[in-house]
């Protein structure tokens, strides 16, 4: 005879035993990574001495408020500009072709070198100037500068792309 029963006696969990089991697991893990842990403890100690741990602790404990303050500070026009400019500069650098940049850097370096030899030269007469303009090297440099100006001008004149229409 076995009547339907519903009472269940749960095995009482022994907190002392559970804790000691957990500790054994932790100790095992510590033993397996002792070298790394010793270094980590050293770093922790330095961070503590420097007061950084307390700062982190404070920030984490109050992360909601700190986060909200930080976000409202960040959500300002100046910060928008900073981020935007930062990204524009990165984009600008990204758009330059390294070979060309390298060449221009060479050209400028060489130009700087030549310009540093200026001390020994006599003052420049109008005749010297025309002579210089005729020299292929100077002519080439001036060409380059004018081409640069032309490129800028072209971009200033350029129509806006198609997909901006129809707004």
């Amino acid at each position: 005879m076995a009547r339907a029963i519903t009472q269940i006696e749960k095995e009482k969990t022994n907190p002392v035993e559970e804790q000691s089991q957990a500790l054994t697991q932790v100790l095992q893990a510590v033993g397996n990574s002792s070298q790394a842990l010793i270094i980590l403890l050293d770093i922790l100690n330095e961070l503590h001495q420097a007061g950084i741990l307390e700062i982190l602790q404070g920030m984490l404990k109050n992360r909601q408020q700190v986060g909200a303050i930080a976000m409202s500070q960040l959500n300002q026009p100046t910060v928008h500009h900073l981020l935007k400019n930062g990204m524009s500069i990165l984009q600008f650098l990204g758009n330059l072709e390294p070979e060309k940049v390298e060449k221009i850097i060479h050209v400028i370096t060489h130009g700087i070198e030549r310009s540093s030899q200026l001390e020994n030269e006599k003052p420049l007469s109008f005749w010297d100037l025309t002579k210089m303009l005729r020299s292929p090297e100077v002519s080439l440099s001036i060409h380059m500068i004018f081409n640069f100006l032309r490129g800028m001008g072209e971009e200033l004149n350029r129509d806006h792309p198609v997909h901006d229409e129809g707004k």
Partner: protein
Amino acid sequence: MDKEQTFSIQINHHLVSVKAGQTILEVAKLQDIYIPRICYHPNLRPLETCDTCLVEVNGQLKRACTTKCQPEMMIQTKSEPVKIAQQEAMSRILKNHELYCTVCDNNNGNCEVHNTAEYLQIEHQKYEFTPKPYPPDNSHPFYRYEPDQCILCGRCVEACQDLQVNETLTIDWNREHPRVIWDDDVPIDQSSCVSCGHCVSVCPCNALMEKSMLGKAGYLTGIPSNILEPMIDITKEVEPGYKEIFAISEMEAAMRQSRIKRTKTVCTYCGVGCSFEIWSKDREILKVEPQVEAPVNGISTCVKGKWGWDFVNSSDRLSKPLIRKGEKFVEATWEEALEVISRKLKEISQTFGPDSIGYVASSKCSNEENYLFQKFARAVMNTNNVDNCSRYCQTPASTGLMRTVGIGADSGTIRDIARADLVLVVGANPAESHPVLATRIKRAHKLHGQKLVVVDLRLNELAERADLYLHPKPGTDLIWLNAISKYLFDQGLEDKKFLKDRVNGVEEYKQSLEKYTLEYAAEKTGITQEELVKLATMIHEAQRVCILWAMGVTQHLGGTDTSTAISNLLLVTGNYGRPGTGAYPLRGHNNVQGASDFGTMPAWFPGYEPVQDAKVRARYEQAWGVTLPEKPGLNNHQMVEAIFNGKLKAMYLFGEDMAIVDSNSNYVQAAFEKLDFFVVQDIFFTKTAQFADVVLPAAPSLEKEGTFTNTEKRIQRFYQVFEPFGESKPDWVIIQELANRMGADWSYSHPSEIMAEAASLAPIFAGISYERLEGWNSQIWPVSKDGQETPILYTERFAFPDGKARLVPVEWTAPFESGEEFDLHLNNGRLLEHFHEGNMTYRSAGITHKVPNPWLEVSPQLAQERGIKDGALVRLTSPYGKVKVRVLVTDNVKGKELYLTMNSFKDMEAVNRLTSSYHDRITHTPNYKEIGVKMEVLEPEGESPLPRANYRFGNRQPQLGVQVEEKWKRPDWIPIPEMINKENSRNGQSDYTD
């Protein structure tokens, strides 16, 4: 079959061969050419709302999703005009959708909006995003709708209208700001939404989201809104271009992959066999994500499969073995529990013989576990006393089919049901009990002109939609079935060639029909002669007929005979062995087919080979190295009887709440009290477990590997999502550990080894293997050694030695009469939201919110006669017991017929307190559906047992699809080709012709 016409077209200057009727998008997909397509979904009809699939066809912009290929077509998918058009389409979408991908829970690598915007290299918002003037709808317990993120693609509407065919969602295109609305614009929770999840699963962005995902899926998505909103503002202000945003969100999506685990599983509820991915994080289920690849359901699910998994992590789960000590159970170690069980079983077996112990298997557990359990009973415990719960439901159907066509299972697949010209549903309520299968019927009926006939006591959902609904008197189905067969013969409308070539016993059968005239049938069934002739004509006129049935047929005194009559009718009309035809007994549990297939039946080895066959026995004896018992064992019903007459002393039962689900539960529970020793293995402390001496904690499907077999005989693998809860263990592990204690020497390390053994022994499973079932693959038995499956049975032969089917004469058995004082007929069964008695589904707060109680359906006539209203409390009394339940007045039921839902495990509400121990004379399946009761009114009105938040109070809005034409009529809509042309001519660069 029509010979398919093929021709060639050019895509991006490459010659491609295509079949007539294919769309450009389909062909491009086959060629691995990517065309954006946000509103297109392979399980849905094309919607034409997003325009991102515009391509150049002979120089003109056309939608790839609907444009059919024509010979000589020249298609460009990457030209400049295409790019401009697609970008315009995308820009229009982004006007409705704020991109904050990194902090969006839908950023999991599969967001269509994200991926398409990225592919189209959208850099900036062309049209400014403006929020819509509607708040998010968070009213539903499981999902939310956020209008601000909704791109109005209409996938959800199409899925609801034409795939699930629940017809709740529409888009109101005529408002200034269109949005998706539920019913006639009510909160989601108050609508006709059945919580199937289709809309959420097909949403290409985060507008419709599972609430379980919100704030959980991403690394940053849990950020509180006072920090999150300024973050989104900064991103928008700075707007570095979407390229950079996408780069970051992709990184974040990649990081999510390691912490969100995606595991394929097979649903553990009904017999349809839906498969899907479970997305989990630690022990938490983030969502159920169905996939197009799923062979049965694609992206379809129902409320239980999509949301009903909370039971796995319920704190009520059994976590340790329990041993009865005096008046209480005490937690024990596995060692102690198994020791007690093996000692007691040995003692009892030695004292009273092996047949003094009964073994009840589970249709919730895997094929491998059922195989192992019958092996345990037969090989280790030396008895055939092993059965499973199909005894309660479908054994009569199987037996009817074995008699007539040879195999006791569905003769085709769900795809065949969908392509039939006529579907006849008898005594079944698929829209609630097999929801995803029902969607296929509703879709075929709504879109493809399939005819639908329902014969049922209740005006269920399919009955409401049917072309013809017939209401017979309870328990008279055999009569009208036979009458229709007779009418067809009388009119010479039988399939003469089919009968001559493929069927035996025609003449004898014809003669047996003599008394089933239309007059007789009309008198006995209450169906008019005109209706009968109409049905017969419909069956005759349809080229392909499928008949579906379930408990309304089987749970009667004559259940097997009625099932036989159904099969006879299919034979008479030649509806076997062809696509779109056949017999479909709808299996109730996820693995009720597999449990029987793999041998937990008293007379059959795995694969339906008789235990009495010496040759078969020899095969198993050799493989298992034991001598096996020859005599068929006791079935469930006989086991209960044997307890009463003292022959059965002990039972070992797993995964079955027999104390509630067996009929006449007072009687069954009294039997359990008499057992000397009772082992119950389950995931919960069930009613049955309360009678046990030892209770073992088992692990459900998400915590183990295995296979399930669905109603189509399709075997599918499921994979492990979690570790077993507490100290619980998978059933196959428990059975093996116990077997080894009892002297077996088993060493299965994985269920695949068990399947390999079953495949090596049972010829119908010869070619089944875990490798062939990998991932989304499936196999439909019989499977030959080379892996060839059999989706449609009997294409050449029936499963008898001479290959011919048999017409088997059957006579009507009048249903059981409870006596004159029991003046009301009580019908009963499942409902959509809860599975069976609700052991698992009540653990979901959301489901319980939708359906907190069982209820009793009472017809308006009867309610008026007895002076009761919704919420009335009544006591029902049958000769076997009584229950107390609240009333719902509904015209689902007629006259003196009642319907009690079975979603309760409380003694005072459980329907099986009322049912009797009478049963089908052949299979011993209880006659659950034949019970008379009397009704006493305790309170004439009260609180309705069903809350307003239930879909049954909703107000469906049927329409075809999303009605994109309404969108095109809006004054602010300009076709994209037209707009581009205008712009081009304004710019004086009209290099593009219309």
